[in-house]
């Protein structure tokens, strides 16, 4: 096989996993944009999404087209509960404290999942088919190809909504200036809830995709850390940043994993993160926060 074809295939695989990263990063961005909270529990929400799908599809025997929306809705519901129960009481507190609350929340979610479903890794019921996909001569794993398409569509929908839909505009306004948005009659608490519902729902959906590729386990939340790198590189408050950052990190991980070895994947990602922090602390597309005297 030619080196060029191999490179193309690796690149395509990288783009595919990059799309998954971007989708997960989107959950970070939505929540951060509206509420200025870095939700480290996004990884665990993703895991929960995988398990909810598992429960609906394997446990209750529902077909995939019903189980997927239910899993996403379940994620959204948990998001709503978390926002009302944990995040709103912390409004106005030090952002670090809120960040730590989400770490605690992540731990609780992992424990609950272990309690209910045990710790064995499981495979999700297959619903994506098995025929391999070829782009030209280049092979792409079918699951990865599907994940790429789904992630791309979802991100495109979000970008459109942000621009044209009232709720999206309200979210952007809230992100820019909460007080001003409030005085313009925007229901700011409503926007907060909405952002958490949509963000956690998105994470749960990403969990279904990820779980169908690699199986589910209570430890799969670590994927959230890679997505965190994506948002830092892309900019915490930028949807476009999540998209570009996700693809970039996906590509770099794929190249590093292939040409250096699998053990270099994480270290390359985090090395990149450090460089990004030193050069552009607020990300490629993020808004610079101005320090005030």
């Amino acid at each position, binding site marked *: 096989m030619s080196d060029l074809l191999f490179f193309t295939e690796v690149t395509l695989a990288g783009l595919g996993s990059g799309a998954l990263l971007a989708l997960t990063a989107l959950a970070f961005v939505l929540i951060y944009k509206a509420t200025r909270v870095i939700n480290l529990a996004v990884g665990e929400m993703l895991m929960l999404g995988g398990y909810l799908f598992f429960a609906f599809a394997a446990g209750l025997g529902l077909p995939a087209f019903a189980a997927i929306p239910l899993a996403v809705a379940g994620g959204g519901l948990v998001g709503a509960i978390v926002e009302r129960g944990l995040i709103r009481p912390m409004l106005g507190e030090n952002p670090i404290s809120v960040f730590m609350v989400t770490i605690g929340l992540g731990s609780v979610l992992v424990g609950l999942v272990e309690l209910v479903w045990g710790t064995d890794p*499981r495979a999700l019921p297959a619903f994506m088919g*098995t025929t391999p996909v070829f782009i030209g001569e280049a092979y792409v794993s079918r699951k990865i190809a599907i994940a790429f398409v789904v992630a791309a569509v979802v991100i495109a929908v979000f970008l459109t909504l942000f621009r044209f839909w009232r709720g999206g505009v309200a979210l952007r306004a809230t992100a820019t200036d909460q007080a001003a948005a409030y005085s313009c009659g925007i229901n700011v608490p409503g926007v907060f809830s909405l952002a958490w519902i949509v963000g956690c729902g998105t994470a749960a959906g990403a969990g279904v995709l990820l779980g169908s590729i690699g199986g589910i386990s209570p430890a799969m939340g670590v994927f959230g850390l890679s997505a965190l790198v994506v948002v830092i590189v892309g900019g915490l408050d930028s949807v476009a940043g999540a998209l570009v950052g996700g693809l970039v990190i996906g590509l770099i991980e794929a190249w590093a994993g292939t040409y250096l070895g*699998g053990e270099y994947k994480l270290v390359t990602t985090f090395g990149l993160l450090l460089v990004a922090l030193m050069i552009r602390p607020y990300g490629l597309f993020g808004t610079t926060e101005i320090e005030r005297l």
Partner: protein
Amino acid sequence: MFGITRRTLIALSASAAIATSLPAAAADDIVIGGSIPLTGVFAFAGIGIEAGMQDYIKILNEAGGIQGRKVRLAYEDTGYKVDASVAVFNKLTSQDEIHLYYGDSTGFAKTINGELDRLGSIMMAGASFATELNDPKAFPHQFMAGPDYSEMTGILLEYIAKEKPGAKIVLVNSDTEFGRDPIAATKARAGELGLEVVEEIITPPTAVDVSTEVLKLRRARPDYTIFHGYVLAPLPEFMSQAKQLGLETKFMGTFWSMDSSIWAKVGEAADGFMGVMPYRYYYDEAGDAPMLDRIREMRPEYQSTPYMQGFLTAMLFTEAAKRTLEAGKELNGTNLKAALNSIENFDTGGIIGVPISIPGNSIPVGRIYRYDASAQKMQPASDWISVQE
């Protein structure tokens, strides 16, 4: 409901039922201590191990115990965390007089080794088959109830060399202590046997998406792919993608990947998976295995490979204790280990298909099995292979 498997529930309640229905402890009980992972990433193994040990102890006690003394298992969950295992060890050894101990991980075996040497009163075995532990000088009070990881891959290579001389091999290992354990030994042994290792793939411990690794595999086009350092994931994804690509490679694994119930859940993609297994399977109908008949009598449903491991470990523990007491010696680490090493051509009741000897810290025998998806069973693909020198 919600996909909690029946097996898990049964195993949990069974283990707990046994734990609660313990007869009142007598003062001269022989206590086997245990740091056992009933939860955490290795719970699947811990639950089976615990059940296996309990069952053998039950059989033994029903037959009168050891010189009239009952045997009892005192264990706690560790969640497969080294510090928790050490805490459990200290708690249990503070509560009971313990001479035999089951440990749950390589990390624990190494960590507690100094304490074992200091105490001098305990012989330990466990769930780790780490090559490093197979060294009677460095680990004089420990052993493993099977071949170490390098010996396991050695058995696989032996088989490959016979089936297809000069075969091309790819090694896939997880980037953990467990995963990297046999790499060096495997490469050396492959060279000796005239096999060619064409690619080494290391996956990050948290890898879920293995597309790029599969591409590497495709490029290397091996005859055999040997996985080590995993229980299940990401093997099925490797195998189904390889099948999609029409790769001819045969996939192989080591002991902890060999349970047939975990492959049953994978379905069709699992067909043809091979690996090395030191024990017989629950459903093996071989005529020379009275212990398997006994197990099937006690437990009508399938028991996992870790169950067999626990069962055999308890058998060897108690055999060593019996030999020590029969020789009129004190129960301590050194005497127990000496008694264990005196085991020669020992009949395990069919748990292992050949008589075993334990001159050192391991039992370097095993057999190649192949998974048959239609029967949902592992079928023997070779005879018993010994790599004892």
